[in-house]
């Protein structure tokens, strides 16, 4: 979608988000949550292009969140950006180690193995009370942002800006990756892995690459959210959270990087509206939405959109 209208649209949407967050301070946290979920779902859609669904990726949000929280607690006064970097680095390190062996697995076993590993982390986070604070979680002091000690409103505003910048940047980078030869190899894993090996490319290397990218993306979302909320609980790594990420990625579609953010926006809207108007049945609404999306738009909102633009659809037909 290298289309001027597309860039203008993204620009307008970002401006609208910022304006909203500036005028109504209460919308800042939902906006940050939306962007963080979007980045995490973007990580899932990287894997989804290779045809793999992980039901355990929330563990990278958990690891990155605790990484950031430990950094802030051990070195008081650390800048939020450094804490973020430390969190993401820990998620990537775990991601590399896990990728080394899960990259051999496909389909259901890939999903289950990730689920199993994530449940190990989740349970440990809940049990190792002395380090993680158990299920109550870790509370963290508000860190300075770019060297400025801010009050709550200012910090949330700063985090909103940071999240938006990161989301735009990562969306662009991931879209570049999707179009690169490495990204195309990932699609080939889904379409026909044996043929991929026959033309002399390593499916495993492509999987490792996609996996590490996805763990970094989920990690960024997780660490950012933990810093913005000032609280890190093991709940962030439960398998239902991983399921929500998958939900968002499916909802948006893996055809384009924007899909994850569209999906996250719809998800967050359902949650917000649900919390306000139908507290008792929000989960049911989510479930029904998911069913409808899978039934009518199996390739997500992005796929739905592309159907009406045949010229563009051809190049990403496979996605």
């Amino acid at each position, binding site marked *: 979608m290298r289309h001027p209208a597309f860039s203008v649209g993204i620009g307008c949407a970002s401006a609208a988000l910022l304006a909203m967050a500036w005028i109504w301070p209460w919308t800042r946290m939902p906006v940050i949550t939306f962007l963080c979920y979007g980045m995490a779902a973007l990580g899932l859609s990287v894997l*989804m292009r290779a*045809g793999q*669904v992980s039901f355990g990726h929330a563990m990278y949000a958990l690891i990155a969140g605790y990484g950031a929280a430990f950094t802030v607690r051990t070195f008081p006064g650390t800048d939020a950006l450094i804490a973020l970097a430390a969190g993401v680095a820990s998620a990537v390190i775990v991601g590399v180690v896990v990728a080394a*062996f899960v990259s*051999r*697995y496909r*389909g*259901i*076993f890939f*999903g*289950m*193995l990730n*689920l*199993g*590993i994530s*449940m*190990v982390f989740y*349970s*440990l986070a*809940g*049990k*190792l009370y002395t380090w993680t604070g158990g299920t109550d979680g870790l509370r963290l002091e508000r860190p300075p942002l770019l060297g400025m000690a801010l009050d709550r409103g200012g910090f949330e505003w700063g985090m909103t800006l940071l999240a938006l910048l990161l989301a735009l940047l990562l969306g662009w980078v991931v879209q570049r990756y999707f179009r690169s030869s490495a990204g195309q190899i990932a699609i080939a894993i889904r379409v*026909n892995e*044996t*043929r991929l090996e026959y033309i002399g490319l390593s499916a495993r290397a492509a999987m490792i690459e996609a996996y590490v990218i996805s763990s970094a993306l989920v990690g960024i979302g997780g660490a950012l959210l933990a810093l913005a909320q000032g609280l890190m609980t093991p709940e962030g790594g*439960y*398998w*239902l959270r991983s*399921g929500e990420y*998958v*939900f968002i990625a*499916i909802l948006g579609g893996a055809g384009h990087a924007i899909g994850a953010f569209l999906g996250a926006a719809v998800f967050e809207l359902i949650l917000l509206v649900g919390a306000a108007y139908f507290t*008792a*049945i*929000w*989960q*049911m609404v*989510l*479930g*029904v939405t*998911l*069913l409808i999306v*899978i*039934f009518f738009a*199996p390739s997500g909102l992005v796929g739905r959109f592309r159907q009406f633009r045949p010229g563009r659809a051809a190049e990403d037909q496979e996605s």
Partner: protein
Amino acid sequence: MNLDLLLLAAVDGLSYASLLFMIALGLTLICGVFGVINVAHGSFYAFGGYSAATVLAWLMPDDASVPLLVCALLCTAILVGGALGALLERGIMRRFQDRDPVLQLLVTFAVFMILENLQRMIWGSTPVNAGGLVGRMGTIELLGVTFMKYQLLLVPGIALASFFGLQCLLRYSITGRKLLAVIHHREVATALGIDAARMGLMTFALGGALGAVGGALSVPMTTFVPGVAADMVVTSFAVIATAGLGQITGALVASILIGQARALAVYTLPELEVVMPYLMMVLVLLIRPSGLFSVAEARRI
């Protein structure tokens, strides 16, 4: 660690393994026929447990006898689980039959969310338990240690009966043979004139009933709260992944392994209790990438 403690752990592990097996059995059957991991299976478990507790709460004050109570418990669970399973297959899964397995998995995830919500609407979020039954069944002494009859005899008994019953059904009845044929190769089975759709409906009903019985059997021993479905279903994922998808005997062995490992952890390293099933699964999958009892699959180019 002394011998009494070891025995206690073994019996705890046995009853936990039996429950786990009941749930994993349904899950692995559905997985064998449809090639889909049914996330909504956790809801079968929860619905079975909650409805059984409701029925027991009705019957309990009337001083009903123990066999009647057990019978009511099982019948409720079979009815509720069977109906839910059949409804799920007929109403939803059938419409997504030709989709990508990953999408089908997500369909079951969506159903899980809906059922989880329904369950909270019906039974609320107060903890539910039917411990009275365990008390009424009394205790038994084994090697000098006192055990609950319920835990030592009833639960493992029903699990074993289901295992052998299912094996007989699959081996010696026409329907069972047809089902095995569908599990083995759906397309060829259909070509041979087997109504795969009917088999699918049956499988889901049977799987649902098994899951619900698992829930009904655990409600006298544990307390049900919202979220119990999510916890149980991932543990049984671990069991069937360890066993190899669609493997019934494998599921038995894997549940015993995981049940005993968990019970040992409860008595020795309580921190690791919850982690145990997943650790076992990860270890097994690292050595045997498609589970303990998996059969080799042909490569399709």
